[in-house]
């Protein structure tokens, strides 16, 4: 009959076996995690058609991007956070940042993560109102896979920004004296709304003399759906006491939460 090994010998062997078992378990885990991770299918920021732009009530453009992630492996992704940055491709200036809240994606599921990025149309971004811009959209995904592996995914793509008042011009015509003694100043407004949201608001015009004195002002309603344009001439009557020749016309737009000054034009 086999004798039982001494306690110290058994303890030593047990410790050694536990160490080996831990290693084997970890290697099995590593192999399954690697196999499982091979079934991850992320799509980040590479497709402009998956994004949309809207205007929120406070006049900020909201760019909504969706990141799709297919996790058909055995382990969950938790937490997963996505960060986005929009910058001007020409100047490199960062226009806006945004991201998602931490998420958990269970194994065997597909997730579509909506990410919103707010682009304030003020300050360095004000040019986006009237100028189409080439923007660069960069996305970063930070995720912990299988509770152990940290995955950092970075992607970038070009984004074509369509301005809501693209190519805006308010071209004054030559002032003409009217029989009633007033002076007619025709102003032709033209622009294209290349954004996906409508321009619904009012234009306020102010006609000034060469010296900067205000001759007259007026407002006209605007309702231009996205993807269409406006080409319209408005007539402004200036009192004869005010000579608009050589002056300028200033216009502002108010509506849909936007309130901004459009480029001024000189009156011939």
């Amino acid at each position, binding site marked *: 009959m086999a004798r039982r090994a*001494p306690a*110290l010998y058994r303890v*030593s062997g047990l*410790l050694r076996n536990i160490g*080996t078992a*831990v290693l084997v378990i*970890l290697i099995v885990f590593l192999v399954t995690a690697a196999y499982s991770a091979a079934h991850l299918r992320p799509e980040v920021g*590479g497709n402009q058609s998956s994004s949309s732009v809207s205007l929120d009530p406070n006049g900020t453009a909201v760019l909504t991007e969706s990141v799709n992630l297919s996790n058909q492996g055995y382990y969950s992704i938790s937490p997963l956070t996505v960060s986005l940055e929009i910058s001007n491709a020409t100047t490199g200036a960062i226009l806006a940042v945004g991201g998602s809240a931490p998420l958990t994606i269970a194994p065997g599921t597909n997730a579509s993560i909506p990410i919103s990025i707010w682009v304030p149309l003020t300050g360095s971004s004000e040019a986006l109102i009237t100028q189409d811009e080439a923007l660069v959209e960069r996305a970063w995904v930070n995720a912990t896979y299988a509770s152990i592996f940290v*995955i950092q995914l*970075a992607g970038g793509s070009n984004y074509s920004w369509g301005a809501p008042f693209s190519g805006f011009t308010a071209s004054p015509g030559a002032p003409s004296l009217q029989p009633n003694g007033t002076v007619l100043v025709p102003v032709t407004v033209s622009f294209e709304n290349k954004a996906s949201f409508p321009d619904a608001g009012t234009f306020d015009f102010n006609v000034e003399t060469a010296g900067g004195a205000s001759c007259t002002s007026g407002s006209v309603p605007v309702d231009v759906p996205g993807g269409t344009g406006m080409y319209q001439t408005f007539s402004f009557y200036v009192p004869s006491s005010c000579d608009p020749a050589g002056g300028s016309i200033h216009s502002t737009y108010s509506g849909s939460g936007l309130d901004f000054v459009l480029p001024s034009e000189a009156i011939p």
Partner: protein
Amino acid sequence: MSAHAASSESVAPGYVPRTIDANMGRPAAPALTDHPPMLIPSLGRRVAWACVRAALVLVVIVIVPYYVLSLVNGFGVSTPVPILGMAALGVAFATLGAVRYVSRPTRAFGPLTIAASFVSFVYLLYLIPLASIGLQHGGNISVVVEFGRFLQYCLIAPLFGMASGAVTTYEDLARPRERINYEYAL
């Protein structure tokens, strides 16, 4: 010539292995003692087997990782792990493992178990801050996978190895005859 250790080999004091080399390989009849019958391989055989083990270890922890890293590097996968450091610690680990195996019937076995586990512990500690692989795809997408936390969990194994070595060291000091009787028991 016997393939097994003679009683004059520098095994731990008091270890007097009974061999089976006499009588054409047939085991000797068990003596009427408290010790179970055992078979200690000769020093030469242990050295030869230790070399084979060391070579296998080197293949697994140095050559295969180097080959895999070189292979995936061709696909744009990069890692900051320096091959020289990995090779140096891998050779140290394999050598210590071989020496440890050779010294199994001696009192050096426990300390060498601790040393081998310690080297593997240092090997993992060395790799933890470097444990990442990166992939650049299409010029505008990059992926970095960090697996330092996985290696931190791997540190558990050499910790148990060191504990086991400490117990063996104590056992060999406190009860010199005890372990060898079971280490090579038939």
